[in-house]
């Protein structure tokens, strides 16, 4: 169910220019219940539903060979030799090693540390690292050849524990106010250590790429991907190609979630190297096992948190340390860490903040982009802190958040003044009202009290405990800091000679709706039927570089460029014809021929970030999300069933209600998996559960009822006000579920996932277990620490010491009259 609400707050300082998309959106306040309300059907939907959509593995390239990757079976070693069995006939297969790479042996991204293939004499830095490539006319021969190739290596000592690693990929240090002084003066200090593990994206379609040699000596790759121009750049660098001779074409893509942001560059390079050497198309379609074993995951993190609260219950200090495990190579780690650092405080105003973060190398497969991009890890910790503080203070977690949540005019740790589009309180209230949060909480508290204080239950009692939990989050919209300025994306719109409108961007469709919303935005801006708008194929030979399809930036940033391009196109045609565009464009196309407008990104007015000092406007705007989760916990087995979720997400402006709702539901379920069952287990740097039988995500039966409430607090920098929706729900699901588990059982689970093993251990039902012993002793200790601190504090138990409303007298409030 979708309930769309306007923000009730006063008009934002610079309201977005009225724009035609307004005609497409649902009147504020209406309940749409999954109804498109005039928004078009998904462009790629019919082909997918009828099975005619062509994914990479469906494409036939006559004469193509099968490509395969020979991977390391050690976490850290020197590669001494690649040996080919002389008893095997190698004339029928093609072998590629690092020596065959014409250009730099580097997967070009942020840092030049990751080789396309480990060279002989070089260092294997993680399990399943690509070392050599094979291509053969059929799979049987490929398999046979793989068995006849041996890697000779010398083992090297490996590092698996990020806290033991001395190799730092990136670090940040953000300071505001005086944290130590504030903590020293605080009435209550709550400390916690939170650990979150890997998470696998688990797109339905495995990584897949087909490379086809070109007559001009270049190569075209067709595959499943998010960012055509990342691959384009990687091909040019390693294969010494110019813009034209490297071509990247997206095929229908069965999900990405960030997992097809950087890894496709690797597999495209592999396929291209093989194709160039055997002078024929080469298909590299991963099996699930290889995909899970080798490709990137969400970064594990250890977040250490100290929060200080003063006598009146104000949040006066946050001292946060974040350590992320980057795996063996840099990939996107510095950017993930940066987003994690910037979101670590959560959506709460605080005068004294210190956030120190570092991402380190371990001998595990590199971690990379995944929906949320560093924020889910830290926001889990931030929300755990708030919920635990609420418990110690005996204040409702809702009430505490209402007092602390950012309001317009507040200042973030980087000194960013939140001038507009601030809807934290709004989403909080909408979600908790719809979920009847306080009423349910009273009921669950009563049941818990009847069961006994330890939550373990009495003999003969009900062995299922229900709980409700709450989390609030924020997510910076678009690239971090000056990222968008550096990207300088271009989107184009063309009135074609045959009188149609073509939208040209490199923004990819992977099920989230790019191909549907761009025509919507263009049609609305130009006043033409949406059927008259075509989307050009995501082919670097055709479309300009509108940047990667990541960071929830497509609707906001690229959608904004599309609207601006349409606006210019309309003005040009109207100036030429003297008639409204909608009436004139067909005639104009006939008389004047095609007209194309290229629109480049222009910095959002007033948004400034200093990369050197890490200060200023970290994001042009933030999206805001609240999640209320209800769970049942089986007290005998620790099994958690998430029954009901109410999610309120502020996305700025809803372009397509059904698609936006789909993002909220999908993101929420992915967060529930992260919270409860998804866990990668490692042994000597190798993922043990690298198959679908052992890496489990929620099924439809595990999915709760999800109510999505879409809130609109528009961002004036985007012509349509949209801020993006893809990642928001991922940030808040896990802490809400873990809070609900606490509400049900009385125990805090500090580490994700809150697995039955951890829950039973925390309930004291099992001895320390390998996966939870550390978590348990830690949890107990710092809950005690928090309680001790509360006892020392002159806060009377049983009475609410907090002021009932925020007042301007609060010392940390920045002036709001801007």
């Amino acid at each position, binding site marked *: 169910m979708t309930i769309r609400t306007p923000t009730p707050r006063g008009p934002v300082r610079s309201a977005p220019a009225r724009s035609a998309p307004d005609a497409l959106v649902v009147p504020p306040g209406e309940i749409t219940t999954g109804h498109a309300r005039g928004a078009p059907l998904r462009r790629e939907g019919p082909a997918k539903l009828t099975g005619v959509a062509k994914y990479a593995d469906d494409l036939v390239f006559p004469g193509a060979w099968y490509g395969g990757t020979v991977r390391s079976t050690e976490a850290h070693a020197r590669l001494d030799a690649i040996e080919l069995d002389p008893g095997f006939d190698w004339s029928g297969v093609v072998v590629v090693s690092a020596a065959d790479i014409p250009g730099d042996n580097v997967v070009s991204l942020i840092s030049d540390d990751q080789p396309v293939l480990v060279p002989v004499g070089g260092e294997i830095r993680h399990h399943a690292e690509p070392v050599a490539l094979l291509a053969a006319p059929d799979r049987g021969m490929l398999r046979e050849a793989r068995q006849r190739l041996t890697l000779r290596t010398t083992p090297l000592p490996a590092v698996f524990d990020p806290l033991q690693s001395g190799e730092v990929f990136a670090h940040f240090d953000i300071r505001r106010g005086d944290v130590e002084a504030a903590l020293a003066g605080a009435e209550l200090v709550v400390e916690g250590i939170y650990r979150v593990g890997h998470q696998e994206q688990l797109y339905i379609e495995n990584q897949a790429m087909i490379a086809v040699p070109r007559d001009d000596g270049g190569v075209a790759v067709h595959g499943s991907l998010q960012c055509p121009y990342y691959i384009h750049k990687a091909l040019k660098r390693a294969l010494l190609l110019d813009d034209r001779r490297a071509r990247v074409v997206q095929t229908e893509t069965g999900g990405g979630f960030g997992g097809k942001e950087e890894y496709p560059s690797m597999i495209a390079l592999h396929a291209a190297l093989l194709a160039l050497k055997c002078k024929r198309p080469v298909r590299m379609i991963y099996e699930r096992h290889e995909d899970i074993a080798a490709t990137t995951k969400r970064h594990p993190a250890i977040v250490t948190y100290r929060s200080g609260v003063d006598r009146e219950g104000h949040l006066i200090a946050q001292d946060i340390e974040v350590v992320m495990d980057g795996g063996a190579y840099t990939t996107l780690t510095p950017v993930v860490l940066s987003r994690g650092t910037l979101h670590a405080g959560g959506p709460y105003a605080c005068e004294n903040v210190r956030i120190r973060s570092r991402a380190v190398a371990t001998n595990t497969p590199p971690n990379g982009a995944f929906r949320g991009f560093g924020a889910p890890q830290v926001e889990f910790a931030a929300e755990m802190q708030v919920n635990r503080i609420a418990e110690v203070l005996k204040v409702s977690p809702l009430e505490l958040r209402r007092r602390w949540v950012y309001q317009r005019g507040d200042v973030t740790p980087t000194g960013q003044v939140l001038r507009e589009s601030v809807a934290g309180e709004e989403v909080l209230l909408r979600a908790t009202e719809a979920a009847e949060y306080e009423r349910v909480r009273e009921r669950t508290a009563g049941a818990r009290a009847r069961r006994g204080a330890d939550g373990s239950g009495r003999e003969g009692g009900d062995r299922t405990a229900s709980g409700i939990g709450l989390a609030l989050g924020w997510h910076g919209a678009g690239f971090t800091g000056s990222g968008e300025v550096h990207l300088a994306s271009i989107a184009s719109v063309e009135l074609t000679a045959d009188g149609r409108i073509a939208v040209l961007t490199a923004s990819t469709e992977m099920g989230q709706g790019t191909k549907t919303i761009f025509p919507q935005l263009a049609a609305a801006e130009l006043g033409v039927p949406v059927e008259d708008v075509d989307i050009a194929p995501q082919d670097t030979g055709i479309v300009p570089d509108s940047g990667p399809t990541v960071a929830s930036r497509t609707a906001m940033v690229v959608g904004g460029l599309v609207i601006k391009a349409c606006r210019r196109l309309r003005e040009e045609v109207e100036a030429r014809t003297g008639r409204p565009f909608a009436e004139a464009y067909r005639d104009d196309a006939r008389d004047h021929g095609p007209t194309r407008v290229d629109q480049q990104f222009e910095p959002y007015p007033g948004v400034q970030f200093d990369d050197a000092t890490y200060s200023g406007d970290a994001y042009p705007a933030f999206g805001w999300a609240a999640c209320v989760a209800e769970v049942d916990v089986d007290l005998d*087995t620790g099994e958690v069933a998430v029954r009901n979720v109410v999610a309120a997400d502020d996305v700025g402006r809803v372009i397509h209600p059904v698609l936006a709702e789909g993002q909220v539901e999908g993101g929420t379920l992915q967060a529930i998996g992260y919270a409860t069952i998804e866990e990668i*287990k490692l042994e000597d740097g190798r993922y043990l559960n690298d*198959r679908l039988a052992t890496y*489990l995500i929620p099924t439809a039966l595990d999915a709760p009822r999800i109510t999505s409430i879409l809130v609109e607090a528009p961002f004036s920098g985007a012509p349509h006000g949209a801020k993006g929706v893809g990642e928001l729900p991922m940030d808040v699901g896990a802490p809400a579920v873990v809070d609900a588990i606490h509400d049900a059982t009385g125990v805090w689970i500090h580490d994700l996932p809150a697995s039955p*093993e951890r829950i039973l251990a925390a309930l004291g039902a099992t001895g320390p277990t390998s996966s939870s012993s550390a978590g348990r002793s830690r949890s107990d200790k710092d809950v005690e620490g928090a309680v001790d601190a509360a006892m020392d504090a002159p806060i009377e138990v049983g009475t609410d010491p907090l002021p009932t409303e925020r007042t301007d007298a609060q010392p940390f409030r920045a002036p709001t009259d801007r």
Partner: protein
Amino acid sequence: MPIQPPVESPRDLGEAYALLAATHHRPIAGGTDVMVQITGEIGQLPDRLLDVWHLEGLRGITVSEGALTIGALTTYTAMRHSAPCREHAPALVEAAATIGAAQIQNRGTIGGNIANASPAGDTLPVLLAMDAEIVAGSLRGERIVAAADFWTGYRRTALAPDELVLRVRLPIAPDREVRFRKIGTRRAQAISKVVMALSWHLRDGRPEWRDVRVALGSVAERPIRVVATEALLEGAAPTAETAARAAEAVAGEIKPIDDVRSTADYRRAVTARVLQRMIREAGGW
């Protein structure tokens, strides 16, 4: 993709026996275990497959001579829809309903679950708890193996290489109660962390339990019965005290391991608690 092993598809049991006697074949029924092993390159690739799917003699569910007999090729879906199964083996139907999802239940067979001999095979504790008899056959004839003697080690069975599982016989006992519980990572499509079946007989309307069976999966290298715990429950009534003692006994009797799905401690604790809960629910207190 590996090379596909050659497949024979005999049309009757005699032909199948002859093929098995002549050279080693790996039977394939629904293929829901075999195909995963082949495409996942798990273990040795079989040299030859023997497709038993068309052997009608291995199908059918009958009630006769005081037993429910289920053909080896019976799928989970067939068991769920079968009135005799629901009447005489509701716990087996319950187990069948937890296996995989609809596709797997349409294709996966009880014979496959038995012969695959996974320690996590979900029907196997039920078969142990119900004193099932497994009927095996070869050119040499048919023989009966008690479920308690069938699984001999990690993925090992009492079957000879040339033998097929033909059917499974479940004695019908009107005074018997059977309970089943599976604990997996998620609510469907999950391999068990612990799976348990408990059965007992009530004689002459007395509250004491007789012929108690406690059978477990995923806590040892094969499906097992915990005989010391059974002995403790034999002749006892389902009181709070009995339940607590049984829970303690079973926790001491099993030696589960840490693996990719769960931990030894969790398995031990949950086994004890689920057994306690089953006894409490039976006792109605």
